[in-house]
């Protein structure tokens, strides 16, 4: 309860900060949407040349992309601004101030600030998903909708844990400022239909770093082409990643030497 109160208070502070720079707020929305726009153009052009890709028509793919846009916007709003600061805090010794606070230090480090600018980007993703649902004539029940939302949150949680593990390499490598850029490009695997991956790449993207599941599983619920085994694995993978990231964090923190790194 205390954690939730602190989180909401942080949201309020972040909103006040963003409102102080309104033009920047708008520019952020536009620049964050460009990646989506580029791939929208890409698929629009591709589908003028072929009728479908592995059985997927354009609105199936747009629904998947819209879902990923919602996930990445949520992730960028809640976790990136916070995780990005960890390498600097470890190097400067600023982590001391977090470890001694009477609240879970991992939670405090992970959800201190909220980037409202990225949160606004969700609107674009939601609009694309709704448009795709209408175009595909999908009938969405309340249960499907709730499951979709739940899986989106699990997708965000999986992304958070993968990035957290990468960031934690700072305790061993003494630098992990590369990890965010690395992780964001790694996400190029996430907004493509899972069926295009085969063999070793498939196993890597599903079982080792399940990034290919984060948008595909929620989208598959809407598209009603889901694989129940993969859905179960999706939930287990989220829990396992959280468990392992916690172990890595605890091991890492024992190597932390204050301001002396």
């Amino acid at each position, binding site marked *: 309860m205390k954690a939730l109160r602190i989180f909401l208070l942080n949201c309020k502070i972040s909103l006040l900060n963003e409102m102080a720079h309104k033009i920047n707020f708008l*520019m*952020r929305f*536009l*620049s964050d949407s*460009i*990646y989506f*726009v*580029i*791939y929208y*153009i*890409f698929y629009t*052009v*591709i589908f*003028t*040349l*072929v*009728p*479908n*890709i*592995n059985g997927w028509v354009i609105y199936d793919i747009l629904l998947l992309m819209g879902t990923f846009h919602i996930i990445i916007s949520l992730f960028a709003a809640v976790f990136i601004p916070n995780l990005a600061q960890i390498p600097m805090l470890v190097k400067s010794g600023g982590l001391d101030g977090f470890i001694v606070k009477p609240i879970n230090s991992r939670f405090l480090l992970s959800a201190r600030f909220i980037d409202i600018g990225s949160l606004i980007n969700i609107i674009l993703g939601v609009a694309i998903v709704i448009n795709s649902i209408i175009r595909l004539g999908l009938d969405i029940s309340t249960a499907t909708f709730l499951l979709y939302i739940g899986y989106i949150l699990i997708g965000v949680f999986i992304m958070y844990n993968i990035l957290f593990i990468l960031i934690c390499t700072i305790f061993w490598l003494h630098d992990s400022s*590369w990890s965010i*850029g*690395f992780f964001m*490009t*790694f996400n*190029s*695997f996430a907004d*493509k239909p899972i069926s*295009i*991956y*085969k063999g070793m*790449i498939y196993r890597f993207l599903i079982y080792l770093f399940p990034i290919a599941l984060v948008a595909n599983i929620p989208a598959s619920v809407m598209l009603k082409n889901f694989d129940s085994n993969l859905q179960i694995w999706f939930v287990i993978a989220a829990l396992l990643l959280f468990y392992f990231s916690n172990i890595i964090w605890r091991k890492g923190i024992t190597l932390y030497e204050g301001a002396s790194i």
Partner: protein
Amino acid sequence: MSKLLKTAEIGLQQSIVYKNNFLLGFVSGAFGLVVQLVFWPVLFSSGTEFGYASIESTTIAGYYLNEMITYSVLVYFIQRGTSMMNIGSIIQGDITSGGLNIHLIRPIKYLWTKWIMSISGQLINFGLSIFVFLCISILLKANFAFPEAAVNVFLVVLFVFFAYILSFLINCIIGLLAFWLLEVNSLNTFVGMGVAILSGAIFPLDFITTNFGVLLKYLPFSYLAFIPTQVYLGKFSFTDVIHNIAICFSWIGLLIIVTKKLWENGIRRYSAFGG
């Protein structure tokens, strides 16, 4: 001459200092390439559904699968070898922070310094790009299109050099806009993403079958990725090559004039904050 050589030496040293950044950029950029290498065969395999006998005989917008794979790999390496996106940010930083002051009193022109430092700094990147490109082409040789004549290789190197000059000039122009706009980082992002589409880095410009696609081939951006790959794939006749060299020279000339004008007008407005 010695001033230019010294500048080139500094650029080379800087690229060695930041070699880890380059390697990480190379690896993380490769994820995008892997996605494309996975994506194109799937797309071409759909060809059998619209009348082609096999994946190998399928053509999409005039490209066979091996040509499409080669296109993606080549574009990736040309981009890694010629990418100068940070030049815009560096120039903007110098203008807005007042860091330009120190350059103005040096006995060498500012933009010349930037050009020499970037080209020497890219030497290692470029060499490494060629090496990795050769390794990948050998690895993918069953699905890779090799140039039909040695002259194509020479022409690709020439067009890549043109791409380098154009990339530098486009980024300089964006950086110099900081004399008027002060904050050009968002513009940099917009232009970077726009250039990715307009240069043919995301898909070949032939995929756009309307007149707009034809127009795109004449813009300077197409020389950053699309045109060099067409030369490599042997899709250009001798006349096409000469024609494109002439267009490319015209764009380089025009952009040099724009850059000079922006510099001359901008420097009159420059207030030399801080520094």
